[in-house]
């Protein structure tokens, strides 16, 4: 079957050439991050004369990379942990206790998922501004928790529904309390959905710009997207360091992605189907 083999080769080539074209923007930025601004402007597609890291050192200092990185890390880690812990607990509550109030609250959370952040941002900034609660990482983490809870509860709700109750019952007979049963028996069973939710929430919080730009006002609190923005608006024509800054912001997520590749893909699939 030569025709069939030919079409298979064609398909493979098409996909790999397509991928290279698709990733070309990344490759060009990486290549140019090693050039001087002068060289970049003269020829943005040429191979770098010598791989110099001076742009990286320059950008690292000027955009205060370390501070932005640590701020982003703290906000993402705590935000994601809080969302997972509390939405798992609430999802459990809604599945195991069919009280009227729970049904109403669950419905409200489902409805909330359809409301975009843009509808909340103005009153949010107004209210928290009046209370003097802006410009605080703790408040921002708390906001992420509030916005992330509905999707979390929804996903845990769907998963816990499929877990049989017998295991928990036997643990009650052994004299375990409700909270202890939850933490020792139910929570470990939720691992697959925890990973899915963590992937979705890490990508969201790490890359988010709009909410932190409204909440975090002082430069010391800037997350990575905020420092990237500040850096670009200040040094608009200094292309060398700008390219290096882009590469540096992409690297942390890229490393995580290479390690967790399959989980990320699975998380996206499950998040979309749910």
């Amino acid at each position, binding site marked *: 079957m030569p025709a069939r083999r030919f079409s*298979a080769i064609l398909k*493979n080539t098409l*996909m790999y050439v397509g*991928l290279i074209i*698709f*990733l070309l*923007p*990344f490759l*060009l*930025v990486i290549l140019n991050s090693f050039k001087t601004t002068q060289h*970049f*402007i003269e*020829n*943005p*597609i040429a191979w770098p004369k010598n791989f110099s890291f001076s742009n990286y050192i320059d950008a690292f200092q000027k955009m205060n990379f370390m501070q932005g990185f640590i701020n982003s890390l703290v906000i993402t880690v705590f935000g994601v942990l809080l969302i997972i812990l*509390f939405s798992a*607990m*609430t999802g*459990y*509550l809604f599945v195991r*206790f069919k009280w009227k109030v*729970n049904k109403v609250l669950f419905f409200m*959370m489902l409805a*909330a998922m*359809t*409301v*975009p952040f*843009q*509808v*909340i941002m*103005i*009153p*949010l900034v107004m*209210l928290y501004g009046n209370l003097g609660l802006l410009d605080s990482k703790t408040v921002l983490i*708390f*906001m992420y*928790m509030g*916005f992330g*809870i*509905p999707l979390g509860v929804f996903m845990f709700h769907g998963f816990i529904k499929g877990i049989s109750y017998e295991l928990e019952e036997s643990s009650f007979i052994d004299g375990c309390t*409700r*909270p202890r049963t939850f933490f020792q028996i139910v929570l470990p069973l939720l691992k697959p959905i925890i990973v899915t939710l963590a992937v979705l929430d890490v*990508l969201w919080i790490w*890359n988010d*710009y*709009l909410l932190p730009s*409204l909440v975090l006002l002082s430069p010391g609190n800037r997350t990575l*997207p905020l420092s*990237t*923005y500040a850096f*670009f608006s200040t040094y608009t024509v200094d*292309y060398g360091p700008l390219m290096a800054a*882009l590469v540096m*912001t992409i690297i942390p997520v*890229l490393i995580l992605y290479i390690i967790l590749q399959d989980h990320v*893909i699975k998380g*996206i*699939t499950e998040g*979309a*189907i749910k």
Partner: protein
Amino acid sequence: MKNNKKLNNVGIFLFFGGPSLFAFAVVFLIPFIVGLYLTFTNWHIINNDWSFVGFSNYVDVFRDKTFLTQLEFTIWYVIFTVLISNFLAFFIALVLTSGVKGERWLRAGYFTPNLIGGIVLGYLWQTLFSRVLPFLGQQYGWTLFETSWLTSTDKAFWALVIATSWQLAGYLMIIYIAGFTGVPKDVLEAASIDGANKSTILRKIILRLSIPAIVVCIFLSLSRSFLTYDLNLSLTKGGPFGSTELATYHIVQKAFLSNQYAIGQAEAIILFVIVAVVALTQSYLLKKLEVEV
């Protein structure tokens, strides 16, 4: 005894639900209600006056020529982004599920643009459009690229569409792949034994059976592109001459730069209603085409 049980239940409710319900109420629910009320007042940051003005903010929004032009601009941007990203994603997913070597790596590769946020995405494409493409255009005489797309009012539109579709396509591809894997193999085999050709199989079977995935993908791409902000800010900054301001960008400017909070909020609610109506209509219409296996 009964009282004790009730007290116990309240305890369980507060322990398991308390923290998340508190956060949900304080971060989402209260601002949502205050936001709705805000649109019926003339609240201003200077005088802090909350007098009730009825629907006048909404009337103002529809009288505002700039907002209407920007809404129209946003709608064109959404139409092209949704079409291009979905076609690309559908096509890549189709080829990737038909037995290609290294499918796992290809899938991961096409997904990579989704790791970066809108700000970085915008700057990445900004350098391409303002430096790399004009260089190539001048070097090789490609007139299309000779000047930066970002300085031309029509071409900046396409820059936005291309950058968004580039990222979205990889995301939607993942969902389409999941949809295609759900198409039963025996149905496909039966069809090809019955002599159906490739395009018939694609149109009559694959397309029909992956309608749930199509609904999700169009829904996602619609709501994402309608609400684009970061990319708009970093790629074009609304320029040249305010010609590429998408709706969310306009709302942020209105509220936080010109301090017109009430009108900005009314615009946000109108945008939300448009997204909801469009998204629900498309899923209703497409679902009518759905078939059961």
